[in-house]
């Protein structure tokens, strides 16, 4: 053969990948997966939520592999997710069966069942804790045993799996209209691409797998001025939901034959949004509507923002971008937005040459 081809690309890639591995391991510190699942709760929850794959173990591998880069970890899990067969759908989950760990309402001081603060950053002072520099296992152990030995005075209602929903109270007061259950089978957005106008099931799916930052920002915009939602958090719950699947071969739909497949931790928010409605006498009345948000793990800001956007899109007047379903739903996915932004790093010299040609010709034309 007479020619020499410079095979730069393949080699350059190999070297770049080696360099990346070097960056991850050169300090010779081993990060155990257990350490990630045990100590990086917030990150694991965020990654599971954005990748819409519930597995703390897989999330921990992704976090380790991506050196804690959330965008990259989500990408890894999503790519893995699309190779997995989806054999079953679970039974519909009623969230009032949640094993509640935390439950607050901003609407009523005394909610039936009481406010349960649970674990939250909300009541901490955001001061750097320099004691963490010298934290020891012995110290941790001591703290935990001390904590567990503390006597907790329980008041009432110890059953945390049957707490009533706050919204039921308002419904009793007729401040919420009675809405019939919509039991239409939801459309799976991972099996059928979004077609507009969308259904609420599609919107909620896209919102719950949305990038935390993007969802939060758009939710913020909607309540700050570029939207018309002024919600009160009726109820925010964090807790575990049991999941069941029906017997795969059994003909009868008897729930007695269901299989329990585990539980997932979720954050659920019901926001109350005042709206004015016309009554039978053609006069305006105030009423509440609900904005609903739910996501994997403890991601309270995201769940609240989802509830705002859910309502905003339900109104859908398009006076504001936050009411425009195409604007919101097509731009909040982490893998899609980061992918398209980062593709700008790819060479564009054919397209650029084409642009140059066009500009030069215009210039020539105007100089004539």
């Amino acid at each position, binding site marked *: *053969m*007479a*020619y*020499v*081809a*410079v*095979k*730069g*690309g*393949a080699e*350059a*890639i190999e070297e770049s990948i080696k360099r990346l591995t070097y960056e991850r391991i050169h300090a010779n510190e081993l990060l155990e997966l257990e350490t990630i699942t045990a100590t990086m709760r917030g990150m694991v929850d965020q990654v599971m939520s954005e990748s819409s794959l519930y597995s703390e173990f897989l999330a921990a591998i992704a976090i380790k592999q991506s050196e804690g880069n959330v965008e990259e970890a989500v*990408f890894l899990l*999503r*790519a893995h*997710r*699309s*190779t997995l*067969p989806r054999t079953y759908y679970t039974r519909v989950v009623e969230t009032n069966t949640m094993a509640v760990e935390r439950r607050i309402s901003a609407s009523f001081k005394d909610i039936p069942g009481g406010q349960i603060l649970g674990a939250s950053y909300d009541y901490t002072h955001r001061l750097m804790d320099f004691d963490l520099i010298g934290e020891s296992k012995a110290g941790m152990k001591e703290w935990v045993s001390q904590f567990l030995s503390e006597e907790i005075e329980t008041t009432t209602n110890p059953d945390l799996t049957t707490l009533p929903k706050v919204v039921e109270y308002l419904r009793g007061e007729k401040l919420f209209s009675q809405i019939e259950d919509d039991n239409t089978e939801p459309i799976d957005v*991972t*099996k*059928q*691409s*979004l*077609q*507009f*106008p969308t259904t609420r099931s599609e919107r909620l799916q896209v919102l719950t797998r949305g990038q935390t930052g993007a969802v939060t920002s758009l939710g913020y915009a909607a309540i700050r001025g570029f939207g018309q939602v002024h919600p009160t958090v009726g109820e925010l719950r964090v807790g575990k939901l049991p999941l069941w699947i029906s017997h795969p071969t059994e003909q009868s739909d008897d729930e007695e034959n269901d299989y329990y497949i585990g539980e997932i931790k979720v954050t659920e928010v019901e926001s109350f949004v005042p709206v004015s409605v016309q009554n039978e006498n053609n006069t305006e009345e105030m009423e509440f509507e609900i904005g609903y948000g739910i996501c994997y793990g403890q991601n309270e800001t995201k769940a609240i923002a989802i509830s705002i956007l859910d309502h905003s899109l339900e109104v859908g007047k398009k006076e504001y971008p936050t009411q425009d379903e*195409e604007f919101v739903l*097509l731009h909040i996915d982490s*893998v*899609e937005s*980061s*992918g*398209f*932004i*980062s*593709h700008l790093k*790819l*060479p*564009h*010299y*054919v*397209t650029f*040459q*084409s*642009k*140059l*040609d*066009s*500009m030069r*010709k*215009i210039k020539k*034309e*105007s100089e004539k």
Partner: protein
Amino acid sequence: MQLQTHFALFDEGSKKEIRRAILKGVAIPGYQVPFASREMPIARGWGTGGLQITLSIIGKQDVLKVIDQGSDESVNAVNIKKLVNKTTGVKTTIETSEATIIQSRHRIPEVPLTEEQIMVLQVPIPEPLRWVEPSEFKTKKLHAENDYSGAWLMLFEQIMKYGKTATDADHPVLVHDRYVMAPSPIPRFDNSKIHQSEALILFGAGREKKIYAIPPYTNVVSLAFEDYPFEVETFDGKQCRLCSATNVFLDELVNQETGSTEYQCNDTSYCLSMLNEDGITAEVEVAHAR
């Protein structure tokens, strides 16, 4: 843990589903068929649409060529080729005529394609009307109603502003007298290669979740006015500094020693084969891949 990946990554059900979208696309030339685009091991915007098509049509006998902006050695082309090869074991090539499937980003090779080949183009924005109408709901309607005034107005406004049309890559085309289509950001120079192409051309937009197609021997006309005909990029009086080819799409390079502008075939594999024919020894560099 199971780590065995399936042939061509996807399970057969997924491939079948994508092939159904492709078949629909072939049946309605230029029409964008929505499909349940999967997340891939490469980034959205980096060719996931093309990759999903390639993976769902590839068989063990196929020979694959992947190019990115004309080059077989560009990092992304290498990466895609590596992934397909790793999950299928099919032979890869840089020789255009040897390939049965050619996946490409923004170029159609200089060597004419044949009936035996399938061209897979990666598409960033499949909607030719997106720049005049951001809403998908509305553009879908415009296509249904055969209302392409937006595309024509865009060209007309350019003529009013600049005295001529000012499109660069991705110049819209009319397919089979029905659908206006984005040919993906190929240079205008390549538009004519789609018209009456012997090879089947498939377009995949992963992030936008659309697949469309040009079946062999389909009429494809670049949008233009009678008095302002369609113009391609011109390289008059210029030739490749290595193989002296003319009538090809050239890259503009700056000679770092002399500071003068030089030109070189954008299609690196074409350039190599030209050199090979003439028995010339040269180093064909892929500048961005170093």
